[in-house]
């Protein structure tokens, strides 16, 4: 499939999904409402921020997944699998615990700091030349650690309401998100996204290995900084307002790879658009389910992504043995 066709198809799909999402009410199905001030209020204050946030988070996760996979030459890399998302969530929960959320901008800052810490631990502990499975193992350890630490904070939480609030980050959702949340993530997402997009051309060269990439003029240090900071800024900010939404960054690049001639560079932009499409659609789905307790989107992606990850793991292991 030609690149323009792929990009056009994905963009069209995203636009349709956004339109449908704006027409979807929680538990009310998809309907075209009468155009009055109530509708305008609902559209503007509730559905628009929710939809935009879903699109932004999806784009960030898809893009970060594509960049991380290309950079690490690892089809299993994803901000969630590598523990970067859960470290960001831990940062947000810590900020919550100490009451720092009174200043709303502390939330993304705490998320970003957590994500930077996670990334730093991952890279310094194991290096990038480690095998595919070792990196995933280190990510599992990081996930386990941040889960345990988060559980500790829940345990020590002063009251059930605090527990309820802190639980939010463990299972992501776009429920009750407002324009304020959009404003909070806008800057870090744009800066992080630009940093990630700018490393894309070098990702093809990374496919030849670190040494060859160096010989072709790719600066390892610049790559590390751009990808580390870019991922932490964009993913950290998204997780701090929407919680952990796993596996989107894993699934999307994997599905698109055959359509982009397996070139990591060509995968970045389509993954961003398709990520947005995926999460906007998933968010429509969770609202269409019967009313009552709303299903959280982080739970849905984990339920679908978990088995996919296992399948991929089996697949990759076989490929590694063949090499």
């Amino acid at each position, binding site marked *: 499939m030609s690149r323009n066709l792929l990009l056009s198809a994905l963009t069209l799909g995203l636009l349709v999904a956004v339109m449908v999402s704006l027409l979807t009410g929680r538990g009310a199905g998809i309907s075209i409402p009468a155009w009055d001030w109530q509708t305008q209020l609902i559209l503007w204050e509730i559905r628009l921020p929710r939809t935009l946030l879903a699109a932004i988070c999806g784009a960030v996760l898809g893009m970060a997944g594509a960049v991380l996979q290309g950079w690490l*030459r690892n089809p299993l890399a994803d901000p969630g699998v590598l523990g970067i998302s859960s470290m960001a969530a831990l940062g947000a929960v810590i900020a919550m615990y100490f009451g720092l959320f009174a200043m709303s901008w502390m939330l993304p800052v705490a998320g970003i700091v957590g994500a930077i810490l996670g990334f730093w631990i991952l890279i310094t502990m194991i290096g990038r030349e480690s095998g595919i499975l070792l990196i995933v193992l280190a990510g599992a350890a990081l996930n386990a650690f941040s889960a345990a630490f988060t559980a500790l904070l829940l345990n020590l939480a002063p009251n059930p309401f605090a527990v309820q609030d802190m639980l939010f980050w463990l299972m992501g959702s776009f429920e009750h998100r407002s324009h304020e949340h959009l404003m909070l993530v806008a800057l870090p997402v744009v800066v992080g996204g630009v940093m990630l997009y700018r490393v894309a*051309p*070098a990702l*093809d*060269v990374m*496919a*030849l*290995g670190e*040494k*060859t990439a*160096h*010989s*072709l*003029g*790719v*600066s390892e240090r610049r790559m590390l900084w751009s990808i580390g900071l870019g991922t932490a800024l964009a993913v950290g900010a998204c997780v701090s307002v929407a919680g952990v939404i796993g596996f989107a960054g894993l699934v999307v690049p994997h599905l698109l*790879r055959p359509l982009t*001639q*397996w*070139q*990591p560079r060509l995968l970045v932009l389509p993954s961003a658009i398709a990520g947005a499409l995926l999460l906007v659609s998933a968010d429509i789905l969770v609202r269409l389910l019967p009313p009552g307790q709303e299903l959280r989107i982080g739970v849905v992606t984990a339920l679908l992504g978990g088995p996919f990850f296992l399948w991929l793991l089996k697949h990759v292991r076989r490929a590694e043995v063949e090499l």
Partner: protein
Amino acid sequence: MSFGQALLLDQVSFGYRDTAIVREANLRFRPGCVTAILGSNGSGKSTLLKGILGLANCLQGRVLLGDRDLLQLADAERARTIAYLEQQADCHWPMPVAKVVELGRFPYRHHRIPEEDQQAISRAMEIADVTAMSGRPVSQLSGGERTRVMLARALAVDAPVLLADEPVAGLDPQHQLSVMQHLQAWSADQRIVLVVLHDLNLALKYCADSVLITPEGQILSGPTAEVVTAENVRKAFGVSSLLGHHQGQPYILPWEVD
């Protein structure tokens, strides 16, 4: 761009952290011929290449091409000056062959001249004999075919210096000979070509000059026929060997461990 100039290592030590592996090398590599880098495992052959590339630390000395210090060059300029074929080079994703070869033009991305790129790519593919497989994914190729694709990738850089680390390892005799022939032809346009080899006979046949590194770190250099002698081979590898001539060309047969 600086074709025809010699590559000089002036009192150079290369290593990792503070440990020198190549010590106080004074070498001059001529353009227009292939130079073999020989020595036992761990003697520092690969480190010598990596040091020139800036992948190993330069603990002292200078690396000069003409009057330019290669270790002071900006990343992109160094990449246009030195092409590198890594040991067991491979492409991680099953990208099409033509796309892999095209990566050799990455150092030129900021001031691209499409015709020049295209010319360099098709020439490299022709020399390495991979034109026929340009649309196939690299993962479907045999080991020998893949090595040739990686060679074409390095040739596409079209740099005055080519460093190849064991480019014939794991190839059958026919492919070994043909890769060496390609490298020899490549050096003919006044390029410097350094090749790490284990096969002394390939050095004798295709490389006018040789550098032999002994386990003690002594570096012998000169015309291959003078460097690859029974005595030096004993010193470097600890084996005695048989020397012979065929149609005026020398060959050597490592025979037994001392």
